[in-house]
């Protein structure tokens, strides 16, 4: 068997391990699936009636941010678990074994993409049940899936970097708060045109707004090429920058 084949088999084994961690943690399921679900219901049924989103129904408006919120919460657990592995000796064990280095981190990334992707799909299912009606073209669906996959990967990379940089598992989760904070100051819950000017100029120029606008546009039948490219540029930037930070943090940890 070739070394490459071994590495991919190891990636599958380590991804399976982290998927068990996700499935066996009630805490994870509550935070990654339960909390976005409650936010969805609360915003649609409690606050939605008072929201003015023009011709777009509020449920159609708010679903994209709920999906991104779910991915962000999931990435916080990636940070938590990467930190646990780094502090409790599991990653040291793996690193003394004949396993490709990239497969060790890849296991965390792979599990994040699969588990959080499944949560996103489940949330989408509930959204459809409560009246969410996307009218995406096939191109719109391609763009939606591409953006969600890129978001899953990019935020998982942020999680890995935070997990390696933090001293404790609680610290690892705290490093992820700014990412969550950005969601609330974006076009996710309300149009940025309703915000005070200083807040609005921030909201319009941070990564979450183009991401949410791009998903929303694709879902509602008018793919916004500009927002899509800006969002993808942000996400690729996240992957590059946080992969480098993760490498540096991992090296610093072992020095």
């Amino acid at each position, binding site marked *: 068997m070739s070394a490459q084949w071994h590495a991919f088999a190891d990636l599958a084994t380590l991804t399976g*391990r982290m998927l*068990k961690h996700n499935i066996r943690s009630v805490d994870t399921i509550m935070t990654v699936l339960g909390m976005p679900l409650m936010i969805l219901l609360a915003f649609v049924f409690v606050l939605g009636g008072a929201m003015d989103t023009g011709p777009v129904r509020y449920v159609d408006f708010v679903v994209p941010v709920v999906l991104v919120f779910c991915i962000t919460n999931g990435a916080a657990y990636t940070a938590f678990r990467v930190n646990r592995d780094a502090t409790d*000796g599991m990653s*040291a064990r793996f690193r*003394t*074994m*004949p*396993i490709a280095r990239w497969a060790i981190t890849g296991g965390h990334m792979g599990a994040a993409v699969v588990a959080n992707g499944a949560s996103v799909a489940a949330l989408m299912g509930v959204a459809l049940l409560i009246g969410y009606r996307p009218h995406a073209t096939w191109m719109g669906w391609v763009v939606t899936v591409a953006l969600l996959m890129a978001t899953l990967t990019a935020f998982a990379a942020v999680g890995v970097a935070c997990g390696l940089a933090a001293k404790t598992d609680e610290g690892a989760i705290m490093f992820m708060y700014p990412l969550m904070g950005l969601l609330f100051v974006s076009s996710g819950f309300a149009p940025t045109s309703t915000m005070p000017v200083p807040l609005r100029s921030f909201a319009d120029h941070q990564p979450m707004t183009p991401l949410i606008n791009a998903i929303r546009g694709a879902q509602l039948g008018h793919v916004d090429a500009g927002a899509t490219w800006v969002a993808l540029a942000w996400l690729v930037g996240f992957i590059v920058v946080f992969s480098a930070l993760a490498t540096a943090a991992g090296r610093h940890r*072992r020095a």
Partner: protein
Amino acid sequence: MADDVPAVQVTALRKAFGRQEVLRGLDLEVPAGEVLALLGANGAGKTTTVSILTTLLKADGGTARVAGLDVAREPARVRQAVTVTGQNVAVDAVLTGLENLTLIARLRHVPAPKQVAAGLVERFGLADAACRRAGTYSGGMKRRLDIAMSLIGDPQVVFLDEPTTGLDPGGRREVWVAVDAMAARGRTIILTTQYMEEAARLAGTMAVLHDGVAVATGRHEEILRAAGGAADLETAFLRLTGQEETR
């Protein structure tokens, strides 16, 4: 590995963390099939030595070979030859004992990983707890699981870094039995310990680390002789590590 190739061969090994020099030219040779106890006070460089030999750390100078392989030049092949049980128990608390063993068996690419795991669960007296999460195990059980995980794939050189620290006498005895069994199978074992009676009980040879070098190496009697004819190992250890006056 041919029998005449030393399992571990360390020459003039140096490692510093910032300005703090931990290893200052360590020399050490362990013949294949030996059980060696690495003795030293806290901070003497025992764990640093184990980390370099198991490819977790890079040395600043000198050479280290494990099973004839240079750890700096061929880390991937060294990882095929070694296994390590670290100071902290490295078991996955969320997985069951059986799943922990199966995980490592899969990663070592042994044939029939599930059967290997089931066999080890029996051998290490964990059969009753095999399907419980490792997080619920006692300290001794976790350590036994940890050691069982380290034995999968039958690596030639086994490193045990303070394998009994924090265990009660029963747990310690369980680990000793496991070490004896490994030694009986002809594995080379390098263990670090703070306990002289443990070193005397398990190891054929010892090396005393002090100030980043090996101040004495050899069998029980040779250590006593190196310490100027000390009556027992503990006295010899304190004398060799310059702690005699303070006690």
